[in-house]
């Protein structure tokens, strides 16, 4: 798995969609032949993967929004992004 840099700009590529499933009442990440079920924190991260914000900006934003220690959030976010990149459902530019 790759090291995610703080300057990287994560983005969900075309063909990967975060959507609310009203039938099952949950958030889903839809990808080719895959359905991933992000938890509430993962959804908060994914909603910020807009192809504009850097990893640093996303972590700062989450640290403020959730009043949580930045270091913990940074490690978790980078691990999650690396994992999604390995599955090719996230681009890091």
């Amino acid at each position, binding site marked *: *798995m790759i090291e995610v840099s703080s300057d990287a700009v994560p983005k969900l590529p*075309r063909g990967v969609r975060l959507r609310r*499933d009203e039938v099952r009442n949950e958030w889903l990440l839809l990808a*080719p032949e895959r359905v991933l079920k992000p938890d509430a924190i993962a959804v908060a991260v994914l909603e910020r993967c807009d192809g504009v914000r850097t990893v640093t900006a996303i972590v700062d934003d989450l640290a403020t929004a959730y009043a949580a220690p930045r270091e913990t959030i940074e490690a978790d976010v980078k691990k999650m992004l690396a994992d999604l990149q*390995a599955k090719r459902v996230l681009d890091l530019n």
Partner: protein
Amino acid sequence: MNDMTVPNPSTATRVPPPAPLGMLAELTHRCPLSCPYCSNPVDLEKRSLELDTETWKRVFSEAAAMGVLHLHLSGGEPTARRDIVELTAHAVKVGLYTNLITSGIGVTYDKLKELADAGLDHVQLSIQDALPDNADRIAGLKGAHEKKRILAGQVLELGLPLTINAVIHRANIENIEALVNMALEFGARRVEIAHSQYYGWALENRNMLMPTREQVMAAAATVERLREELQGKLVIDAVVPDYYARLPKPCVGGWGKQSLNVTPQGKVLPCHAAETIPHLVFDYVTDKSLSEIWEHGSAFEAYRGTSWMKEPCTSCPRKEIDFGGCRCQALAITGDPANADPACSLSPFHAKITSLALKAADSGKTDYVYRSFGGVEGRPKVQITRNNGAPV
């Protein structure tokens, strides 16, 4: 052949099934290719029987409302439908994830652009081999491979994500690494290395398609190695060959549990090959709503859950993991669809499937029975009628 066990629906558990995740829409059985491993039934449905645009759109709306997430626009060749753009746009509008499963033949750049503009999510393109001449021989169409290469370039140019699907069999199993490299070269994010499953046309061609056990072992090792090497570049999904397996595959993720198929004329099936099970009765989208068929259709109820099972499945700790494997394979090899899939080493028929595989692999035959309308020569034809019983 053994007597068949016909499950009694009155004894089946009556818990409403969870919503399906995926739907395969076989929009048409027309296809410019004639691949001998095609998963379509041997009796292909004619153009004159195909559902009209409005009916497909209604079916897509119903699918989305009941909770289907992925819609696979398939065939045959789905772009042979003149209304493919309109159908795709509608599916996108109702919130379905749209996946175009194409041979890449006859798809113009303009058509592809219209599909991309309509919101198509993903393209899955088949390739038959890494060696163009062999690929064309397998597909039964000269020049097919080069057309696929061109289409792949256009898919990328339009910013659509691409999966390459390669069905693996004796004539290309030695070329898996080259196939994976070709998928990379085509710009795919994902590749499916799908060992041929022996139903429909592939069952007719088993002697010509079956690899040797040594080839299968080598192929598995190659896929494992490439997965490591290409992590983060290319996702490799594999469909394992089950004739040489010890454990059965959880076929379609469990009968009537995760997915459904709709044929060109609107017949709703739990899987591609379900029509080979003679006692099942299928419903049509022209007669009933999709959710009614999914929840109460007798073909879906027949093997849903575990109450239909016999030993060795009934007492098996894996019965909720693999659901006894594949009903159609159980029928084809053992004569009874309620038997354990003979791919399972606990099946009394396991030795039979192994010996069938070894014999087929050793047959030396290469003369494919190519997919075509009109079925297989020398086989009894099934009388095809409209769903109201009128002749075609």
